[in-house]
């Protein structure tokens, strides 16, 4: 019984991987023709990025403030509280910025993408496009995918800047670390390698989350329950894959 169940789960996993791979090939082909419609891509950058801005900025601020408090508490035990700027900058650029932004992006923009495409499918809008000889892959899926890929690094960059400001607010404003020391430590500790790691991570996370979100919407059952389940799958798969890929990329950049 359990071996049959395992085989069924494995087969379902292989099937899903196959469906997603075929979808990715079609999506990349659709991206080529979608580039001829820059207006659609800009609109999707706004949908995925602009509309996530408030939660990203708020989360960045509080994450930075927590880093300030916690960093100060730990570092002062070693008499190294002046290294707070260095700690906050590296933690944000290399880990917290890309990962937390990706998790928030999956919850806010990923779910919106999946449910929007799922509902378009359920109300025959995608079928109507096909009948009008317009490929929904290049008109609906590709602009949303590209919009997500472009928006994600921009959001991560904003998260990092606001986060660093939050750490500065607590470290310098509240706990009395010298402003000059904070910024000079930050400047000397952060190299191009660290910035590149953050950018690569956020690009990869953006591509993976957007692919999952668009694919789940496209493959969803055209019912209210089907769209709901697809939206849940988007959040779960995006979050788990983000953390898994974060480990792989961190190891690769060491």
């Amino acid at each position: 019984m359990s071996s049959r169940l395992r085989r069924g789960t494995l087969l379902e996993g292989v099937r899903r991987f196959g469906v997603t791979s075929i979808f990715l090939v079609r999506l990349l082909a659709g991206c080529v023709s979608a580039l001829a419609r820059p207006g659609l891509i800009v609109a999707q950058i706004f949908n995925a990025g602009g509309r996530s801005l408030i939660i990203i900025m708020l989360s960045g601020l509080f994450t930075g403030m927590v880093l300030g408090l916690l960093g100060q508490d730990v570092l002062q035990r070693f008499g190294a509280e002046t290294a707070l700027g260095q700690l906050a900058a590296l933690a944000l650029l290399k880990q917290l910025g890309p990962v937390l932004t990706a998790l928030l992006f999956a919850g806010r923009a990923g779910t919106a993408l999946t449910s929007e495409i799922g509902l378009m499918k359920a109300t025959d809008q995608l079928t109507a496009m096909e009948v009008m000889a317009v490929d929904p892959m290049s008109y609906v899926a590709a602009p949303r995918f590209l919009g997500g890929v472009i928006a994600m690094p921009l959001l991560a960059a904003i998260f990092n800047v606001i986060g660093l400001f939050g750490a500065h607010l607590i470290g310098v404003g509240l706990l009395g670390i010298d402003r000059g020391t904070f910024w000079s430590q930050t400047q000397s500790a952060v190299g191009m390698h660290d910035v590149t790691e953050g950018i690569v991570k956020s690009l990869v996370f953006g591509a993976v989350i957007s692919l999952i979100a668009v694919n789940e919407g496209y493959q969803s059952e055209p019912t209210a329950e089907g769209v709901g389940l697809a939206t849940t799958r988007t959040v779960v798969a995006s979050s788990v894959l983000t953390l898994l890929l974060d480990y792989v990329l961190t190891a690769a950049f060491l």
Partner: protein
Amino acid sequence: MRDVHYAIDGRPIFAGLNIRVRRGLITAVMGPSGTGKTTLLRLITGQLFADSGTVSVFGRDIADLSSSEIYAARRRMGMLFQNGALLTDINVFDNVAFPVREHTDLPESVIRKLVLTKLEAVGLRGAAELMPGELSGGMARRVALARAIVMDPEVLLYDEPFVGLDPISLGVILRLIKQMNQALGITSVVVSHDVQELATIADQSYLLSGGCVVAAGAPQELAKSDSETVHQFMTGSAEGPVKFHYPAPDYASQLLGADEK
């Protein structure tokens, strides 16, 4: 469509379906719910492919066409969906203009005139700036009809065009289907189970049941048919060859709990 067989998950939908749509005529395809009327339209538009048999569109088997050739064939067709299927993120005007902007390089001034002409034909020129969410079901259907005819197609496919319409909208849609057929020579395929409405406009009709055509001819001929299936469908009787009830255990024994465990 010649000897078309089509099954979904092993359940046969069509088993030897033969339908011929004549150019310039209105063809009605009728049948009880679940007989595959919408599937038939999807076979014609090349969204689905028959398991066996031939579906010829504009003289060519749609199964032999490449995807770009299918898209080219679709540009010569228009389709009215049961629920309208309007794009919900753009307004009525942009919905009607959508296929024109996608397939032509016409200037916006020409597109504007074209769209307003089509919206006037369905009585919704004043609703051009409304969003689809602000329309009633009947209005959405009329906008969808304006979108379906904006490219002046050679063939128009209607999927249940009369469902849920008020008497005025119903009369307008009926007249539009007839007018477009007579004035522009558009070949129309109307899939519906509204027998009375179809009888007023159809030139030829097919009645589907059990995956194949059980009766064909002019609507008046069908009304006089001796076939039990045709008679049951025309009179709307629950008793007859077409089962109204889904297969179930004996009613009395189920109510009295004979099969409870």
